[in-house]
């Protein structure tokens, strides 16, 4: 009897003390569940609190191949509903895996239809899915989130770490039926839904810009188009429209072709719009006065052996007329008054050849060669916007600098980041990069640019009731195949701001490869006028006249 008790006690000691860690591990496996929650991705708002990207519910279809009795019949039934080929589904159903995704994040209607089929081994699971309430609106700026809720482009990508939220692995006790139990020892970890991002985009202005850009691109059968509307005093981007764009809600893989934001990633030669920058440098350096005369060689001039042409055969023109008529010869001669280093420094100061800091993915600094690498013709060519590569965002910021009386502001697309409890965790304030030109020079140039719109090439940019200061641009595209400027492909642009006396917004319109008419003054300027008028009316800016 005593011996039995001793044996029992030894056995108990072995189980309770020596084997304790092993049995605890087995018990924990049965009673503790490890999980990582799928957190809600933050919302993207426009500047007025309108939702531009929200989280919605979607169902994903998966299969347990071993449970499916007739894979052929099942594949046939599902093919139509899932928009996949029968062969593709059958291949998935015949794998040896215990679990296989058939289609992720399908719409509610399709999910209901699949549920009603009651196929054994075909299951649905609920997941979060990104939904873009305005479909195509600002699609490239907002960007796209992938199937696993990761940002792929636009703000979705550059602010991904804020939007995603924080989910640690957590440990919860469960009962014999697998139900979660609140108990001591539960580790709830850190779980925080994604933060919300408030952009500077104004949904209505964005819509105005996109409608007008669509119209312009349709009329001209252009390859690409960009319209940027910027608050010239703060640098906030109110609208950034790119065409072609995509609908983030569309299941079509076509959308992945257009994820880049051409306004920040595409480099183009600014053409005559750059004359405004050269004029700013000349006026600031007191190298020209508005009434100074330049001989424009009746439209043809050989500069260091290379021809420069004007679209009109003009003789003597004042500096104001050179800008009004957008004379390449006139500005090339004026530009040669500048030293290479000086022009380079002004271009740099206006933000060319450098990142603007807009916080959008894929931004390029453009191309602005060091003056040491410039040839003899560089100075004259650069004066009318050849031999320099700029992005649309750089060009609009440079014009905003003129509108802002000489102060360059950093362009911004995000105003603040708010956490899931509504607390502001990061605020982006307008930032003055530098003063580039004096107040006086900026005002003088604004008056000159107003003349360009009143009497010159930018006549069609006139906006009823508001004085516009702006400059047209018609840039021949460089053809890498022939290593020459193309005679058929152009970029038509217009950059300007209004109301000229107290500027509120700067607008850049850029139409790439318009068919038929290709002049900035006839293709881009009318678009500027339409957008400008509607933006002024929307912002409640009273007409000046």
């Amino acid at each position, binding site marked *: 009897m005593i011996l039995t008790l001793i044996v029992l006690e030894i056995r108990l000691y072995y189980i309770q003390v020596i084997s304790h860690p092993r049995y605890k591990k087995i018990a924990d496996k049965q009673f503790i569940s490890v999980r990582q929650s799928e957190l809600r991705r933050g919302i993207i708002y426009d500047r007025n609190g309108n939702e531009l990207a929200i989280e*919605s519910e979607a169902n994903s279809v998966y299969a347990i191949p071993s449970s499916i009795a007739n894979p052929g019949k099942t594949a046939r039934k599902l093919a139509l509903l899932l928009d996949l080929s029968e062969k593709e589904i059958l291949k998935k159903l015949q794998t040896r895996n215990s679990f296989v995704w058939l289609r992720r994040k399908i719409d509610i209607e399709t999910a209901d239809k699949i549920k009603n089929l009651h196929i054994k081994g075909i299951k649905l699971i609920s997941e979060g899915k990104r939904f873009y309430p*305005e479909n195509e609106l600002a699609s490239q700026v907002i960007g796209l989130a992938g199937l696993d809720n990761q940002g792929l482009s636009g703000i979705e990508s550059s602010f991904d770490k804020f939007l995603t939220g924080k989910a640690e692995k957590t440990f919860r006790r469960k009962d014999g039926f697998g139900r979660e139990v609140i108990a001591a020892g539960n580790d709830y970890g850190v779980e925080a839904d994604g933060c919300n991002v408030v952009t500077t985009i104004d949904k209505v202005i964005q819509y105005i810009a996109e409608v007008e850009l669509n119209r312009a691109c349709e009329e001209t059968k252009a390859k690409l188009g960009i319209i940027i509307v910027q608050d010239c005093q703060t640098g906030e981007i109110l609208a950034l429209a790119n065409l072609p764009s995509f609908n983030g809600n569309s299941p079509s893989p076509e959308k992945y072709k257009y994820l880049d934001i051409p306004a920040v990633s595409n480099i183009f030669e600014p053409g005559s719009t750059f004359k405004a920058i050269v004029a700013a440098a000349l006026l600031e350096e007191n190298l020209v006065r508005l009434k100074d005369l330049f001989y424009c060689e009746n439209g043809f001039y050989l500069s260091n052996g290379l021809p420069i042409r004007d679209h009109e055969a003009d003789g003597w023109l004042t500096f104001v007329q050179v800008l009004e008529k957008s004379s390449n010869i006139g500005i090339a001669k004026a530009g040669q008054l500048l030293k290479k280093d000086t022009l380079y420094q002004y271009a740099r100061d206006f933000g060319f050849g450098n990142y603007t800091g807009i916080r959008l993915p894929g931004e390029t600094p453009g191309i602005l060669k060091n003056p040491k690498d410039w040839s003899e013709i560089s100075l004259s060519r650069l004066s009318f916007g050849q031999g320099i590569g700029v992005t649309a965002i750089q060009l609009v910021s440079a014009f905003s600098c003129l509108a802002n009386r000489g102060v360059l502001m950093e362009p911004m697309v995000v105003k603040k980041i708010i956490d899931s409890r509504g607390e502001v965790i990061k605020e982006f304030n307008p930032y*003055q990069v530098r003063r580039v030109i004096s107040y006086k020079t900026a005002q003088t140039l604004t008056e000159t640019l107003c003349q360009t719109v009143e009497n010159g090439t930018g006549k069609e940019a006139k906006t009823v009731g508001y004085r516009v200061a702006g400059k047209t641009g018609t840039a021949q595209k460089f053809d890498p195949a022939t290593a020459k400027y193309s005679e058929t492909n152009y970029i038509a642009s217009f950059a300007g701001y209004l109301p000229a006396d*107290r500027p509120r917004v700067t607008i850049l319109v850029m139409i790439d490869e318009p068919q038929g008419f290709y002049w900035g003054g006839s293709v881009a300027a009318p678009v500027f006028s339409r957008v400008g008028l509607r933006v002024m009316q929307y912002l*409640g800016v009273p007409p000046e006249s």
Partner: protein
Amino acid sequence: MEKDKKGKIGKYYLPFLVGFLSIFISYVWESSEVITLSYRVNELKKELISLENRNCNLKVRLYRYINLANIDRIARQEKGMVFPRSEDILFLNTDFKDSKISSKKPTSISSKGFKRCLEKVAS
């Protein structure tokens, strides 16, 4: 003698037993209550998630009707609405700030003046 002994045991140990049992019962009762409530909390959590999801789905359906492109289409095509002419628009005196730039780093957004004006108009 024996009765006295039993009486003494009853007198001293019975309250102890009752006390022990009541503590034991209240512990069991509390634990069972905690578990029952935790089931309820979990059920409510699931209900909340389901309601949030339903809310999201309703939002998605709502946005199909109220997105700008749809409103624009209905206004123009179905209701025959047109944009007003410039002369038909009456502008409020918005008293915008002059756009003179100071050398100080700006800290506020430009729409403040506009908001202030709207507040004035509203009051």
